């Protein structure tokens, strides 16, 4: 694209249209909608609006099949973020979004602006953001770029989130060679609003003023959405200028100014300028309200001289919002933005025409009917092939390790299980003083300010399961967030999804996408856990090699009484340790098989959703009844890792007796059967918990007690907790301080 001089108004040739990523059919549709050849500015607008990133053209056919409704869902997908009812006229507003492509090219700014963007999606709806989360995937630790990318992404997330004063309370980080060429940076934000103060983007009221607030528009980020809609090649580094630069200071001012503005009754509609900036915000506001927008681009606050309409409409400069105000309230609103030292400009008004009409230097440079631009955007039913499910591996077919203790230490000290404290200590996870469960547990928990309620949040996905079997993997990702939210005592309410896949034009990738969607749909339906917001990131591929399918799920649950919350750390010596759910030694696709045997194969553990629900509801009930002193879900690494993590969290040992039956100890202990939890209860409560489980047919087993300073499993192994702690704590600091 470097050869085209965008400052001129070139002839709109087929070649130029192609450079903008529009297909022949899309070109024809564009001309039909306009009834003429587009101007350059119009071509740019069509190009970004119909990019994969903005239009969801490959995915929306499938996304429509997800369950999105429940009595507690106030706004589902289609708004800036999902909104759920958390009682007392309050609402939780949340969404997760990807910033993968920019973060690979420029990790600090890519990740930072990912955080900024997702925060705006939440506060544009009237919410005060109260928590940030993230889901990060990096390439193999041995890959020469991994340290640089990890370090930059973590600093970027911290640099932005810390400054705006929203705690980054948790997340997940994985390493796998499938991400060597395409890392994933998925950021989630959760906000809190009053239900009668929720703001939407649909514009209304002919003659109402359209206001631009926030930072000035520069030339950064032009074509960012288009970049995120294509594969990477060797020259991707040259795309650095398409990465935006974040300014968290301005974002903080914008949050405060917008919250102040929205506490009045001046606002008709409000929308942040995210991907495709002024274009997508104005088109969405106009088409959503069935009205037209007439904008005078001369009035757009500009950072640089001589910007063209094309550049202004495609810029992805950060920290900007578009607001439609009630008439005669402009001066009053302006005072708020002057107080916060932010730009405030009336750039147009609502019209009856239904068109987005842009004027610049006295000429009309674009005049597009917004309804067809937004609603008739292309939609593809791309061909797909089903992923062949791999064969199940018999637990007896995996040879025993020489020494279970050594195997456990190796796993605990591996990149998969090592402590993430090096990461989360760079995030202010306590600002706002409501973080009541810190990173490192099953779910992060933040109090609803000034109440005893709290929200539990967890982001999860097991990409190796999704790669082996997208359907089971999709189910498992949803079920794991549900379990994690349950394990702190919260009732799971709804999810946001961030669906990261390779090139959708390849039938095998589309098959992964289709399978994962089916799995998510089934899990959400059975668990009564709807999807309220989300994002799709395709083309996570480099030179034809795609990432593992990664449908990251962000789950949110409600604790009516946060004082009932529990953590994974056992409280008292003598407490009884119990396992909920059946251990069958499912060894295929496990971390054990990968780390100890170097094999990535086999079918992932099947997810029985009815069983998930039954077991989870039981555990939650016992937590809320006050009978449980600690709880941890069993996931990656199976029972042995779950027990280890509990021992590490409390610095307490355990004396464990397991009945392996005919399953080898390593398959039993490291198997990743689903729908399981470890719970602890005082010796006086344990019998009651066991009877209660038996009464409702939930599998439960007393496996030992909390005691001493060793993790001891009878007839299998004994390891000092301090040795486990060393292995767990040292990997990441050592790794990050080593030269690659």
């Amino acid at each position, binding site marked *: 694209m470097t050869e085209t001089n965008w400052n001129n108004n070139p002839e709109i040739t087929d070649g130029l249209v192609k450079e903008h990523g529009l297909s022949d059919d899309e070109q024809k549709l564009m001309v039909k909608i306009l009834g003429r050849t587009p101007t350059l500015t119009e071509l740019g607008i069509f190009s970004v609006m119909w990019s994969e990133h903005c239009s969801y053209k490959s995915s929306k056919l499938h996304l429509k099949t997800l369950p999105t409704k429940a009595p507690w869902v106030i706004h589902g997908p289609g708004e800036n973020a999902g909104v759920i009812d958390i009682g007392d006229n309050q609402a939780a507003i949340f969404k997760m979004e990807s910033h993968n492509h920019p973060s690979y090219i420029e990790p600090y700014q890519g990740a930072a602006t990912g955080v900024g963007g997702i925060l705006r999606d939440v506060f544009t709806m009237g919410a005060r953001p109260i928590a940030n989360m993230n889901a990060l995937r990096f390439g193999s630790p041995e890959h020469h770029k991994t340290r640089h990318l990890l370090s930059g992404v973590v*600093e970027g997330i*911290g*640099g932005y989130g*810390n*400054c*705006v*004063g929203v705690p980054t309370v948790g997340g997940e980080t994985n390493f796998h060679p499938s991400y060597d060429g395409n890392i994933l940076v998925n950021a989630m934000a959760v906000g809190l609003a009053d239900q009668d103060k929720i703001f939407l983007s649909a514009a209304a009221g002919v003659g109402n003023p359209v206001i631009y607030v926030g930072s000035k528009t520069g030339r950064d980020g032009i074509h960012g959405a288009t970049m995120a809609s294509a594969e990477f090649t060797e020259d991707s580094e040259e795309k650095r200028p398409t990465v935006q630069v974040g*300014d*968290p*200071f*301005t974002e*903080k*001012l914008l949050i405060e100014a917008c919250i102040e503005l929205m506490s009045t009754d001046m606002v008709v509609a409000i929308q942040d300028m995210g991907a495709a900036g002024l274009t997508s915000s104005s088109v969405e506001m106009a088409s959503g309200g069935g009205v037209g927008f007439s904008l005078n681009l001369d009035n757009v606050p500009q950072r640089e001289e001589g910007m063209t309409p094309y550049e202004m409409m495609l810029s992805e400069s950060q920290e900007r919002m578009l607001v439609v105000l009630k008439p005669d309230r402009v001066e009053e609103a302006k005072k708020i933005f002057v107080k*916060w*030292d932010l730009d405030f400009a009336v750039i147009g008004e609502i019209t009856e025409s239904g068109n987005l009409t842009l004027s610049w230097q006295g000429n009309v440079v674009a005049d597009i009917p917004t309804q067809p631009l937004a609603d008739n955007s292309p939609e593809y039913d791309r061909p797909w092939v089903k992923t062949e499910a791999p064969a199940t591996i018999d637990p007896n077919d995996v040879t025993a390790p020489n020494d279970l203790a050594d195997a456990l230490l190796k796993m605990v000290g591996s990149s998969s299980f090592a402590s993430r*404290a090096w990461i*989360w*200590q*760079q*995030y*202010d*996870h*306590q*600002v*706002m*003083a409501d*973080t*009541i469960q*810190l990173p490192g547990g099953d779910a992060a928990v933040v*109090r609803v300010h000034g109440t005893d309620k709290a929200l539990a949040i967890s982001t999860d996905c097991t990409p190796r399961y999704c790669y082996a079997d997208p359907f089971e993997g999709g189910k498992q990702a949803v079920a794991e967030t549900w379990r994690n939210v349950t394990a702190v005592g919260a009732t799971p309410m709804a999810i946001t999804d961030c669906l990261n896949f390779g090139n959708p034009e390849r039938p095998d990738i589309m098959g992964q996408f289709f399978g994962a969607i089916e799995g998510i749909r089934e899990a959400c339906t059975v668990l009564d856990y709807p999807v309220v917001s989300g994002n799709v990131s395709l083309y996570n591929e480099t030179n034809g090699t795609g990432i593992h399918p990664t449908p990251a799920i962000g789950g949110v649950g409600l604790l009516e009484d*946060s*004082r009932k919350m529990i953590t994974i750390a056992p409280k008292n010596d003598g407490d009884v340790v119990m396992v909920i759910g059946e251990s069958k030694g499912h060894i295929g696709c496990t971390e054990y098989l990968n780390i100890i045997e170097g094999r990535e194969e086999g079918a992932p553990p099947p997810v029985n959703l009815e069983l998930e629900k039954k077991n989870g509801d039981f555990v939650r009930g016992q937590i809320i009844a006050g009978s449980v002193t600690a709880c941890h879900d069993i996931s990656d690494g199976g029972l042995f890792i779950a027990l280890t993590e509990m021992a590490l969290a409390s610095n307490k040992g355990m004396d464990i007796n397991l009945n392996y039956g005919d399953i080898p100890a390593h398959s039993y202990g490291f198997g990743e059967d689903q729908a399981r939890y470890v719970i602890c209860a005082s010796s006086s409560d344990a019998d009651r918990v066991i009877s209660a489980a038996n009464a409702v047919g939930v599998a439960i087993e007393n496996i030992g007690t909390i005691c001493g300073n060793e993790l001891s499993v009878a007839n299998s192994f004994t390891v000092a907790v301090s040795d486990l702690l060393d292995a767990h704590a040292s990997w990441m600091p050592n790794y990050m301080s080593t030269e690659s």
Partner: protein
Amino acid sequence: MKSAVVTFPASNCNRDMFDALEKITGQRPHEIWHQDTDIPDVDLIALPGGFSFGDYLRCGAMAARSPAINGVMAHAERGGNIIGVCNGFQVLTEMGLLPGALMRNRSLKFVCKTVQLKVENADSTFTNAYTDGQVIDIPVAHHDGNYFADDQTLAELEGDGRIAFRYVDQNGEATKLSNPNGSQNNIAGIMNKRGNILGMMPHPERLIEDAQGGIDGRGFFESIINSLN
């Protein structure tokens, strides 16, 4: 106790400080915007944590030149109590009310974790609810908390008992490992000569309720209340 919290653009612990003061003193603090020139007559002014003006210049440098600072200065000269936490500590050094400077952490990274502090001098306006040598838990969250002062200043601070808190390990030893940011002499908080102004990097306002994981921060605020009685 009457108090006031000054908010600068991108202060972000102002609400936390405000809430802590309200909960512990039972009185709503005054909210002061950085452009206010009228500072009410209060017993305590708090400069909260955050990233005033984005910390794009030296941390606290811009805030130290805000219009409200004149009133804060006048309050200081009258002998009124002032606390600066985190960014607020940086502002106090930039105002010249406390000696030394807060440099980038030794690790060059932002650090957020709960650390142990030793109460070095329990005979002060800000520490009297603790006991001498008491080890308390308080969270830190900063990028620039590496306290530096010249040798003479350090000697004075040490000699005058003006070190309020020091980073220590569980046993109360000021070790290199227990120092989260590289501060000289493991200094976490200091006072001015007159004893009415304190700056500290850790956040006592984040640990005042059991739900937050402990109440070790309460003593800090209770000390100030005690000193007025």
